[in-house]
């Protein structure tokens, strides 16, 4: 793999993500109008390139006459919040359990591994919907649901990697050198597992964005008046024959976010390859 190609992936993926992050942070400044403001005269207004568009509503308006562009910009906030918070929490939980299982072995390993097996035998989407329906809607529930469902992904990979690492000679050397187990785990094993975990994190973040969109599509995420990409898609689905753009724009943004994260993950994987040894 050439250096140029590797940089290309990280640059494009990372760049797109950075842009999305800036949009989310500066949403109140960037959004041309209030995303909640309804104007029934502007109902299902088409985007700028079509006839009878309104210049103040560049991407048109939805069925309640709310500005699509402003809603898109504001909806980047819950999406990225969930991506970052759920991604990091999932990583922490899964990695901790994976390290524990791989390093302790014995009963701890058996217990955690069985739990992973049972967990992954459920269809994840259904599990997410069920969990959120049960804990109640809202961003918190969405994050909790993602963490509870997807920790297995990290756990499985980290466990097998830790197993492989603990069988290497440098661990023996550390033990003979008189280091405590916990110290060895954090100082010796963790840094070697880390590159893999970082690549998985980008994947997890893209999954989190999708899950959030799915849950708000089904109506189980944040309350329906604050905008989310999934919610906008659900609203757009209702009026798809009259105003396809209401659905198309949030879809496009989800796609961009997901592809950017995948690209970044691929780039990092290649960049960290000598460490990953894969």
């Amino acid at each position, binding site marked *: 793999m050439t250096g140029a190609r590797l940089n290309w992936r990280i640059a494009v993926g990372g760049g797109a993500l950075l842009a999305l992050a800036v949009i989310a942070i500066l949403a109140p400044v960037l959004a041309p109008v209030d995303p909640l403001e309804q104007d029934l005269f502007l109902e299902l207004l088409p985007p700028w390139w079509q006839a009878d568009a309104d210049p103040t509503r560049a991407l048109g308006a939805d069925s309640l006459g709310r500005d699509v562009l402003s809603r898109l910009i504001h909806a980047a906030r819950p999406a990225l919040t969930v991506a970052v918070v759920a991604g990091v929490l999932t990583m922490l939980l899964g990695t901790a359990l994976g390290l524990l299982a791989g390093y302790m072995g014995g009963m701890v390993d058996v217990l955690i591994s069985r739990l992973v097996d049972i967990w992954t035998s459920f269809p994840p989407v259904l599990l997410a919907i*069920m969990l959120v329906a049960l804990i109640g809607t809202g961003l918190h529930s969405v994050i909790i649901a993602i963490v509870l469902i997807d920790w297995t992904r990290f756990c499985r990979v980290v466990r097998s990697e830790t197993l492989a690492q603990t069988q290497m000679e440098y661990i023996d050397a550390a033990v003979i050198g008189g280091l405590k187990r916990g110290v060895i785990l954090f100082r010796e094993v963790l840094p070697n597992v880390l590159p893999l975990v970082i690549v998985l994190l980008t994947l997890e973040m893209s999954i989190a964005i999708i899950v959030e969109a799915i849950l708000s*599509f089904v109506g189980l995420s944040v309350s329906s008046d604050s905008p989310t990409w999934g919610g906008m898609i659900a609203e757009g689905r209702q009026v798809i024959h009259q105003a396809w753009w209401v659905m198309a724009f949030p879809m496009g943004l989800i796609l961009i976010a997901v592809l950017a994260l995948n690209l970044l993950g691929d780039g990092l994987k290649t960049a960290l390859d000598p460490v990953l040894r894969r």
Partner: protein
Amino acid sequence: MSGHLLLRRLVQAVPTLFGVSVVVFVLVRVVPGNPIAMMLPPGATLEDMERLRQAYGLDGSIVEQYVIWLGQALQGSFGTSISLRQDVLELVLGRLPATLELAVFATAMAIAVGVLAATTGVLFRGRWPETVIDAVNGFTLAVPDFIWALALILVFGVLLPVLPISGRVDPRLGTEFATGFYLTEALVSARFTVVGDLLAHMIMPAIALALPLAAIITRVLKNSLAEAMVQDYVMIARVKGFSRWRIIWVEALRNASIPALTLTGVQFTFLVGGTVLVEKIFSYPGIGNMAIDAVINRDLPLIQGLILSFAVIFIVVNLLVDLSYGWLNPRLRS
């Protein structure tokens, strides 16, 4: 195929099903919330509520509830749906065929597309068709079924309105079906206009479900095919004078299928999980669509019945995968 293996697998499925039923039962009940309150009309008394709790078996401890539920389940009674007020088993069985036909159709499509893409990629190794296949595949791997479903609706339902975007069959055809397996039935009875209409309704949800699976099959199969192509028996086949295309299909494919098949078995879980959402998006009347409504309405007996039927589907699929190993690899038969 050995009946012994089949029997052993079926016996092994019992504890799994038991485990799933316990987990679902507990999960659904430990969280706060009162499904009974949701179904009572305004102005109902506490006695009304108590009566309903008893009627749905929701009084008593969790263990008591589970024992009662299990006893009835073993006799084929899975209770009554709270939101639809119908027998759960009847509801599930009524919807199951639609999901099965969709899932089987989508899986077949995914396998066909995956095998074709992988074999073509290996045939043109190192040339532009392989580059194209790899690029398309990388993109397909990243995009979830949810987005595919919506994109298909947008493109083929709205912008180029050539396909119906909801339902399973056009009611204007006025077709009567004796079973829930509409497509199979229409094929068997040779009603080809109905077959066409069913396929037109099924094709978009099926593609949405099939694409992610097809992408994974392509990647895994392409790698294992490339490995198989450097084996000695492939060299012998080349020296026998066979074309590369024939060698890929006759010599390499079967040996290369095993890793792809294992993965297909695992990924089928995701495909069936995907039906939940895809059916919702296309208003397709299967158990996935029903599951979302059941969850939103907190219809405990129905959720339980649905999850159990998902579990049964997974077990059957894994069984089929296990059995096909023997066909693919003769060494595993003895």
